[in-house]
């Protein structure tokens, strides 16, 4: 029973570790997906001059992670909402760390004149994602140590 209890506590520790690390990894994946979105928007808007709704619909199909974000944008376009407002509202689906970079695009994306802003946004998101990756490397060891030692301590105390 003691061994089983210890095993369960350790499993809980491992699961907690996985959950915490997975959250960080998802933030990194978000950053990568947003960078790909920025690349496609820059190319589609500034170079190919493709209509924005079609561009966003294609991105939505190909980037599952951005489904809720782009879905809200596209719904807002269908409802003829002012673009800056609907873009900012849709950004609530994006991890908080990336929102300040993404939100300003709402004021200029439909004009297509701020290619520099699209490039800058991509760079900022990329930097933020790389910083998350660096922190993940550092924190994973700490998280692992905390979760496993916490589980062991609980096992010692309880059992």
């Amino acid at each position, binding site marked *: 029973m003691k061994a089983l209890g210890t095993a369960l506590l350790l499993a809980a520790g491992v699961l907690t570790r996985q959950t915490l690390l997975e959250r960080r990894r998802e933030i990194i994946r978000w950053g990568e997906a947003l960078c790909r979105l920025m690349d496609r928007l820059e190319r589609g808007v500034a170079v190919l001059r493709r209509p924005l709704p079609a561009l966003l619909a294609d991105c939505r199909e190909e980037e599952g992670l951005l489904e809720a974000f782009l879905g809200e944008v596209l719904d807002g376009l269908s409802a003829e909402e002012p673009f800056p407002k609907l873009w900012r509202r849709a950004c609530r689906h994006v991890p908080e760390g990336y929102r300040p970079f993404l939100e300003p695009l709402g004021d200029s994306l*439909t004009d297509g004149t701020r290619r520099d802003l699209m490039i800058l946004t991509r760079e900022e998101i990329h930097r933020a994602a790389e910083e998350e990756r660096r922190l993940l490397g550092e924190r994973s060891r700490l998280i692992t140590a905390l979760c496993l030692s916490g589980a062991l301590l609980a096992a010692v105390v309880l059992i």
Partner: protein
Amino acid sequence: MQADKRIERCRGAFALLPQTLREAESLLPGEELAAAEELRLRAGQPMAVVLPWGERPVGRTAVSPGDLEQLLDNVTGYSRYTAAETVRQGYLTAAGGYRIGLCGTAVVERGGVTAIRDLSSVSIRVPREAPGLARPLLPRLLTPAGPCSALILSPPGGGKTTLLRDLVRGLSDEEGLRVALVDERGEIAAVYRGRPQMDVGRHTDVMDACPKALAVPALLRAMNPQVIAVDEVALEEDVAAMVRAANAGTALLATVHGESLEDLARKPLFKGMLDTGVFTRAVTIRREEGRRRYQVDEL
């Protein structure tokens, strides 16, 4: 039937408006819907409809700057950059052939307008086609050797563009000629995403939003036209390009502002154009007793 078509066209103009303004359509009686030439939206004032007998407001709700921005987003599908070249020149073309004029604050860089921001007024022109209008004139513009080069002249608002459009259509569809159309301001074919929204004929190639002096030689090189049609010749370089095209054996159709041939001959640019001998016919549009009359003269 024609009235029904005109009403439908007017309704199409209302459909471009933001939702908050569309209901104003119900305030117009049928005869005004059929006669409407333009919708005018000015920030801070109620929308107005331009009728042949004048302009009058529609409803009491003032148009907001946000309404004008939303209109631009509606027309461009939230993709203003796709119409950047024409927006810089103060207009864009919507699906259905609606020509939309824009007024606001010009963004000027390096001596040229690069954008228009903070829209203050917008006009939506209801397109009009008059199929068959040119039919009685076509025989006068054709010889056994082929089509003649012809000038179409009238004062502003006289109907030159409408006549030119139907002449192009007639030469293309009824005579089977290869016509190249230079639609610098998007008023004749009203090309929207690559498709002419007005009927300009099956054998017509359209160069949209391109200055005439650049478009004419390009069309000559690329499309082997039998006729080149241009609207509103006003610059020396336009005339020069057309003379070169004529020397290559292509017939020309061109509209110019003028009350009469005599009036045209008083203007140095057009006197020079007439002196080249390139044009052998002139079609003068006059208003007599409320109707348009078309006089064809040999030059």
